[in-house]
């Protein structure tokens, strides 16, 4: 480890030419020194030719079989020799003073393991902007904040985070089997006792939105969330966190049962029963019955699919206090 050095790990997968700006934003930081490691998950575009040609030796270029974002982070961390680690997806942009601002916070509070801040989103193509930018804030109980969906706090984006090396050593590698690998990492980090610090002020970076992004795949996201909560139940042993996680797990199972995607009626009913068994306090008998009706009745299928029935879905969701997918 080299004290004061910041390692910026860029995970690239078919991001040319966007990754050019990402690399430039990492190389041209107001903080010095930085080392930039580009981990290429076997891109099939111009990345393997262009990145070494344009940026080596200023960046270190590593090509590996596609192990997704988590795998690229792990490879990058193995190669990194910095005291602080920054992970960046290959199409996002770091603010010019991002590293400087967050290193200042680490210097002022040496007990911290992870510093996070806000990011803003932007579109690849022009058009109407249609998303919600999250404003994060300091929290008292981070584990509760990550779990408790009622608070609607999703304030940590991997781009806005700077890790101290000791945090990653404490938590261990990113889970390459997870679809929602970042939430899994934040949960494990808080459970392992990492201390989080908040960096206020201007945006720490800009996240690119494009069609076909993995977070746009709603079904895969809810399957991924189910996996995250299921895994979390395996290691979180304290209350009230366990109860909250079980409630989340039950909700995502309920949701998946109702979408009935690639599931027979029988499987969907079994999933629904599993949801109720996971947390009977969350999925009440009434909700269970209503869910069951939408699965087995012929009209129920339309209820979860039709755009026009959205008000009824909304009403049901209000009555049952669960989201009805659609």
């Amino acid at each position, binding site marked *: 480890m080299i004290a004061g050095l910041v390692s910026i790990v860029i995970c690239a997968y078919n991001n040319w030419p966007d990754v050019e700006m990402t690399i430039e934003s990492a190389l041209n930081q107001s903080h010095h020194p930085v080392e930039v490691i580009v981990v290429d998950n076997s891109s099939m575009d111009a990345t393997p030719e262009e990145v070494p040609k344009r940026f080596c030796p200023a960046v270190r270029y590593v090509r590996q079989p596609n192990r997704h974002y988590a795998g690229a982070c792990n490879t990058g961390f193995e190669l990194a020799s910095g005291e602080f680690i920054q992970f960046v997806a290959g199409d996002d942009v770091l603010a010019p003073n991002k590293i400087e601002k967050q290193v200042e916070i680490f210097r002022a509070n040496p007990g911290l393991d992870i510093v996070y801040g806000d990011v803003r989103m932007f579109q690849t193509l*022009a058009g109407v902007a249609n998303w919600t930018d999250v404003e994060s804030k300091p929290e008292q109980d981070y584990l509760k904040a990550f779990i408790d969906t009622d608070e609607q706090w999703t304030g940590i984006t991997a781009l806005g985070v700077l890790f101290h090396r000791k945090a990653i050593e404490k938590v261990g590698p990113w889970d390459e089997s997870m679809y929602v690998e970042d939430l899994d990492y934040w949960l494990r980090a808080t459970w392992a006792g990492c201390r989080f610090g908040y960096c206020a002020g201007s945006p720490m970076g800009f996240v690119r939105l494009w069609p076909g992004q993995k977070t746009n795949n709603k079904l895969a996201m809810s399957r991924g969330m189910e996996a995250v909560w299921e895994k979390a139940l395996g290691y979180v042993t304290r209350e009230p966190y366990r109860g909250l996680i079980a409630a989340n797990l039950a909700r995502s199972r309920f949701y998946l049962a109702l979408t009935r995607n690639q599931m027979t009626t029988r499987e969907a009913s079994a999933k629904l029963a599993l949801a109720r068994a996971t947390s009977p306090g969350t999925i009440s008998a009434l909700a269970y019955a209503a869910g069951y009706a939408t699965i087995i009745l012929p009209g129920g299928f339309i209820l979860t699919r039709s755009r026009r029935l959205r008000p009824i879905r909304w009403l049901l969701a209000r009555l049952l206090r669960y989201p009805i997918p659609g």
Partner: protein
Amino acid sequence: MTPGLVSVVICAYNNWPDVEITIQSALCQSYQLLEVIVVDNSSTDPTPEEVPRRFGRRVRYIRQPNKGCAGAYNVGFAAAQGEFIQFVDGDDVLAPNKIQKQVEVFRANPELDIVYGDVRMFQAAGGAANWTDHAMQPEDDMLKSIAAPPGILLNTLGVLFHRRALEKVGPWDESLYIEDVDYWLRAAWAGCRFGYCSGGPMGFGRLRPGQKSKNSSAMARGIEAVWAKALGYVTREPYRSLLLASIAHWRFYEAISRDKMSKREALAMLALARSTRPETISALDYAVGCLRVILPAGFVRSSWTRVVLRSFIRLFDRNLGYFRRARS
């Protein structure tokens, strides 16, 4: 003038702490041969202490009486040594390779005077996003593209000037509220050649409440002033009639949106729009406009009648694109 040098002129007015990221985005460019000039329009926040203290000799700090963006640009340009000039407002962010990309376009096309590219917006605070990002493209006839409705609008943040363009066009007009549209019109009229720089956003523009472009009635008056000024020097056809069509469209839109206007004023504005260029605002358009003005505001604003009105506009009016843009 120093060849190859880029002067980044930052216009700051009570932008602390946002201006810090702006200055850093200028200093931390992948193109290294540049100077940064911060022109402070007499900010009353920590800008005058913090900027010289934090950035020292890496930026040139000039404080002046508040003369608006245009005045800051003029002072900045007078102090600039560079071959290329970039103007930035004190809360926007340049993309890290913006200058490099656009200088490459200048090097490849030495006849160009102005290079422009795309800009993306972001919000000062969190919350739901609700705006339209515009896409730029190469234009054959820039004057026509700017003057003709719906008209394209270059964002100063996404533009890099060659020094000779600024010398040719002259200073920014400090008396106008919308100084940029005026500048693009004058530059296109003066025969500046525009080049388009594709690939990636060139910068990020901050959106915040209380921004001057959010003051819709001041913007409306401002754009009128710009058009009126343009009519004074644009003497060639078809640009003059395109300009007149734009003014007619704008007045028509202003009348039917009825922002801070009595019914009587709105009707007078409609009549003015029709008389500006009768070919643009047909009798039918005029009638629909009058109907909309006369009908009670609640009726016009409700979402049900909006559908009817939209189909009306689509049927009879060719101004739809203009309305879309004006609304966003």
